[in-house]
């Protein structure tokens, strides 16, 4: 069992340091411009450690982590799939890395061509008419999307439309986005099969409807079967449809949001199109739009004139909602997405959707055979599925969280727990297309073994994890006492 790694300050020894990493002494002359009151009187409280200690400390910390490179990571709704190293390798070419974002367009035609082609490929795979790459992450893309919906209504003199409809199976960030854009959220229920309640939708649409935010397949891991009907009801009421690209991996190359009737979509390029994510970024939340929202796209967008490429700015798109970021987005992530799509090609893209779906359905079947309950037993899974451990919690007094913690002992990252909120004691499991059948089988075996333990020796499950450097954390206390600052027991 690995020991708990200490805080780096606890390795500090006075006078120790990494002299070759030390910044050059700027000298008194360089400091002369700094007013005395802004100069610190005491040195900063940095740890005094040697270079080797720093290397070992952070290497050990990295080894305590669960990651896709080390473990199966079926974290539902997050698409924690393997990102081919080739994408990283090509995006790290010095010609890309050394390009200055303010370099003249004539010096960056290769990069601009990649971005233009990325826009074109994303348009094709989503069925949209225009794509803008600048939003920095999913939530940023959502903001851009709803801002465009509002701009559209305002441009038509219909500014009263400020209601965004959000089904309870929508992605969790959607209500937050609508609120950030100054809209009022109207939540509607889903039926027992996981589809949007059409009667509730009809009752809530009206002259105030700005639009609806949906993800399809939904957060319940099932495909919204009446999406055509949903689109008709919302469009007839004068609203627009927003597609949250959180679950795009499931339908890649199979169904296009544009064909389902969506007017605007954001894509988590870091998720579906190859960038390691989950660590807080960087991401890329490109947005795609249909005909009606083309004039409102955020700037800059890459345009092509003859054989040359250039940034389209406000002069080209006078109705744009404007800039959402300095420069043009997270170039490194956009490049990885471009390379990933070029490597896969059209057929590869289709296989992503097929295997993501096949793997999820295989695991769903195996796990239900092993004695687990599917939340939607009459539905086929999309790229992910939900188990409900309500029965186990009631009969064995072992919760979904206990299963999640015990899985760590078996060498698996836990699935998403207690989300979506409307399914009690749930595990949301997303295997992704990049896992082999052997890995899927090993996970099913571990889950069966834990179920056996839960009935024979429940303490082993409810007391898990047993092999991790940290046992069960007191998450209630951590949430109530938010001070996480490490304080030295003695001054260094």
């Amino acid at each position, binding site marked *: 069992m690995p020991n708990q790694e200490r805080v780096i300050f606890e390795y500090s020894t006075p006078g120790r340091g990494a002299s070759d990493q030390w910044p050059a002494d700027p000298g008194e002359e360089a400091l002369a411009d700094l007013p005395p009151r802004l100069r610190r009187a005491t040195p900063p409280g940095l740890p005094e450690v040697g270079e080797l200690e720093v290397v070992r400390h952070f290497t050990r910390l990295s080894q305590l982590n669960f990651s896709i490179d080390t473990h199966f990571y079926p974290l539902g709704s997050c698409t924690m799939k393997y990102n081919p190293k080739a994408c990283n390798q090509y995006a790290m070419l010095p010609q890309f890395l050394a390009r200055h974002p303010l370099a003249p367009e004539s010096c960056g035609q290769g990069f601009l061509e990649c971005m233009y082609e990325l826009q074109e490929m994303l348009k094709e795979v989503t069925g949209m008419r225009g794509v803008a790459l600048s939003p920095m992450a999913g939530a940023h893309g959502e903001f851009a999307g709803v801002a465009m919906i509002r701009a559209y209504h305002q441009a038509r003199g219909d500014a009263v439309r400020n209601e965004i409809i959000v089904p309870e199976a929508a992605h969790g960030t959607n209500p937050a986005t609508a609120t950030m854009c100054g809209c009022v959220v109207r939540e509607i229920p889903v039926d027992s099969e996981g589809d949007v309640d059409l009667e509730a939708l009809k009752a809530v649409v009206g002259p105030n409807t700005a639009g609806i935010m949906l993800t399809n397949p939904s957060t319940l891991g099932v495909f919204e079967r009446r999406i055509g009907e949903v689109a008709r009801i919302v469009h007839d009421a004068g609203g627009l449809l927003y597609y949250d690209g959180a679950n795009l991996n499931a339908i890649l190359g199979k169904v296009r949001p544009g064909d389902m009737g969506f007017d605007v979509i954001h894509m988590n390029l870091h998720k579906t199109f190859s960038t390691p994510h989950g660590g807080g970024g960087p991401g890329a939340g490109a947005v795609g739009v249909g005909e009606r929202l083309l004039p409102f796209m955020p700037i800059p967008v890459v345009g092509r004139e003859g054989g040359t490429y250039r940034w389209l700015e406000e002069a080209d798109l006078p109705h744009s909602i404007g800039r959402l970021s300095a420069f043009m987005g997270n170039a490194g992530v956009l490049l990885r997405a471009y390379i990933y799509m070029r490597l896969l090609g059209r057929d590869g893209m289709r296989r992503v959707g097929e295997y993501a779906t096949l793997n999820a359905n295989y695991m769903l079947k195996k796990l239900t055979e092993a004695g687990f309950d599917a939340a939607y037993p009459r539905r086929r899974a999309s790229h992910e599925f939900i188990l409900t451990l309500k029965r186990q919690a009631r009969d064995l007094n072992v919760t979904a969280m206990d299963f999640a913690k015990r899985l760590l002992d078996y060498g698996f990252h836990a699935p998403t*727990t*207690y989300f979506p*909120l409307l399914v009690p004691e749930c595990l949301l499991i997303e295997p992704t297309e990049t896992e082999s059948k052997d890995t899927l089988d090993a996970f099913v075996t571990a889950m069966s073994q834990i179920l056996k333990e839960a009935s024979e020796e429940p303490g082993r499950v409810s007391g898990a994890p047993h092999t991790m450097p940290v046992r069960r954390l007191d*998450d*209630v206390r951590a*949430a*109530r006492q938010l001070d996480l600052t490490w304080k030295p027991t003695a001054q260094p």
Partner: protein
Amino acid sequence: MSNVPADLKFTKSHEWVRTLADGSVEIGITDHAQHALGDLVFVEVPEAGRAVQAGEACAVVESVKAASDVYSPLGGEVVAGNPLLATQPEAVNTNPYGAGWLMRLMPAAGAIAAARLLTAADYQKVLEAEGG
């Protein structure tokens, strides 16, 4: 088995309502709801004087699992939010029908009848139907 006091009225969305002597009502979340949410770490209650509609989200309960809106079972004007919960959100867990009340409301005329609140027996049936 959840505690469902016979003298209170309930909603399908797991709020309870108690009528006080002055005609105002006290509102909170049920024992079943607090159990489903788990240990609460943050509670936001409405300010006195706020007008709320029936079905309007008017309080937030947050646990380590989830943050949920609490919907007002009936329309009226907020008389008070429970000040205790700012520092002791766990009161909702330990005493959901007592010290853990969320808000007091003066109902609008006819609001109680319009709310179609459930009796304890009917709420118990809702819980059974949910498998709780």
